[in-house]
C-alpha cells in the first residue's frame, strides 16, 4: 500500500538545460508527485526518485549529463527508481550514433542508432504500446497510447525491453527496465491520460 506521503516524497528532476522541463514537472505534479528541479549532482544523494528528461541531440545530452554519472550510479546502487524520458532514456545506453559515435552513460546494454531510411523519419505521433513483458510501469497487458517524437531508437537486448512499438516493420523499444532503472522512448508528459497513468505508477515505485 502506497501512502500519499510516500508518493509525495522528493522526486528529483535533473536539469540538463535542454528541452521541455516545465511540461515534465507539471505532468509529475498532475500525477500526484512533488518534483524538484536539480542541476547539482550532490542533491541526488537524498532523492527518493530521479527523472532524467531531455529533448536534444545525443552528444549535447551526454555533454550535460556526464557530471551526473557517478551520482546516478550511486542512486541505482541504493535501488532508487530512475526514469529516463526520450533523450534521457537514450543516453542511459552504452553509445549513440548521432553526430558520430559517442559514449553514453552505459547503465543499459545496447546502442542508439538512427531509424532506417525505409521508414518515415522522424517518427512522430501517437501509437499504442505493445507490452512484451510485465513491468510495474505497465501492469496491464493493454498498455495505452503514447506520443513519440524521435529520429533514433535504442537497440536493446530483449531481456530489458518491456514494451515496443512498430514503425512500419521497424521495432522501437518503448519501455526498458533493469532493476529500478526505467527508460521510455515516448513522452509520457505529452501522452494525455495514459502518460499520466504511467507517471503515477513510477511515482508509486
Amino acid at each position, binding site marked *: 500500500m502506497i501512502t500519499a506521503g510516500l508518493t509525495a516524497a522528493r522526486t528529483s528532476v535533473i536539469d540538463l538545460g535542454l528541452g521541455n522541463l516545465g511540461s515534465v514537472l507539471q505532468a509529475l505534479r498532475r500525477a500526484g508527485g512533488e518534483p524538484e528541479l536539480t542541476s547539482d549532482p550532490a542533491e541526488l544523494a537524498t532523492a527518493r526518485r530521479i527523472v532524467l528528461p531531455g529533448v536534444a541531440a545525443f552528444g549535447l545530452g551526454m555533454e550535460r549529463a556526464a557530471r551526473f554519472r557517478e551520482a546516478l550510479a550511486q542512486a541505482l546502487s541504493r535501488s532508487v527508481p530512475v526514469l529516463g524520458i526520450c533523450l534521457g532514456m537514450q543516453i542511459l545506453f552504452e553509445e549513440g550514433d548521432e553526430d558520430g559515435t559517442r559514449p553514453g552513460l552505459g547503465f543499459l546494454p545496447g546502442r542508439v542508432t538512427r531509424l532506417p531510411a525505409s521508414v518515415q523519419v522522424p517518427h512522430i505521433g501517437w*501509437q499504442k504500446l505493445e507490452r512484451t513483458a510485465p513491468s510495474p510501469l505497465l501492469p496491464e497487458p493493454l498498455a495505452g497510447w503514447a506520443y513519440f517524437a524521435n529520429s533514433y531508437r535504442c537497440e536493446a537486448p530483449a531481456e530489458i525491453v518491456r514494451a515496443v512499438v512498430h514503425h512500419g516493420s521497424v521495432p522501437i523499444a518503448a519501455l526498458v527496465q533493469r532493476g529500478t532503472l526505467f527508460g521510455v522512448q515516448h513522452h509520457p508528459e505529452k501522452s494525455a491520460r495514459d502518460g499520466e497513468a504511467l507517471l503515477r505508477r513510477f511515482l508509486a515505485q
Partner: protein
Amino acid sequence: MLTRRIIHCLDVKDARVVKGVQFAALRDAGDPVEQAKAYGAAGADELCFLDIAASLESRGTLAQLVEQVALELSIPFAVGGGVRSVADAEKLLRCGADKVSMNSAAINDPALITAVARLAGSQSVLVAIDVRARGPGWEVRSHGGTRKTGLDAIDWAREAVDRGAGEILLTSMDHDGVGRGFALELLRAVCAAVPVPVIASGGAGTPGHFADAFEAGAAAALAASVFHFGTLTIAAVKQCCAERGFPMRIDTL
C-alpha cells in the same frame, strides 16, 4: 502503426485566442489555456498556436502564453508566427513548446532551419509552407501569403528537409477557407518528394476531406475554422477516418 493525427490550429494575438469556439464550459473563450485544455479533452492529437500579429511586442506575450499552456496541456503543441532567429525558437522551446514552426524567416535565411534543428533536434522543427498554384506547379508565398517568392513548392520542401526540418506544414492558399477539401494533387506531390511527415492544411470542410488528405499521403491534417465554429467535431472526423481504414487515436477515455 502510427495513427494519423488531427491537429487543431488556434490563431492568437497578444496572447489571446482569436476566433475561439464557444465551448459552454469555458469561463473565458479567449483564454488560450482554457481553449487548449478543451481541445485536448475533445480528442485533438496536437495543437498549433499561430501568432497572427507576429510583431515584436507580440513575441514577448507569446512566450508567456506558451509557458502557461505547457503547464496545463498533456498533448504536444507547436508554436509559430514571428520566429525569426535561433534565440526566438530557443525561447519558445524552453517555455515548453514541443515544436516551433518557421515560415518567412526560413525562406529569408534557410540556415536558420539547420541551426534550430542542431539545437533541438529535427523532430522539433516544423517548416510551414504557404503555396498558390502557378502554371503546372505551385509557388511558395511568404509573409502571410502576401509576397511571391519565385520558389517552387516541391523544391523548397526538399530543401527545408535537407536543412533539418522534421515536418512540413503545407497550406494551399487556393483551398484555405473554402471548405471544399485539401489540395490533394499538391499533397501527393510533396509527400512523394520528402521523407518526413507532411501536415495538410487549408480546405477542410467535411470529415471525408481529412480521410482524403491521409489517402494522399499526409501524416496529419490541420484545421481551424471547422472546429472553431463547431461545423465539425474532432470525434466525428476521427470516426470517419477510422471507417475509411486509417488508424486513429480514438479511445481516449
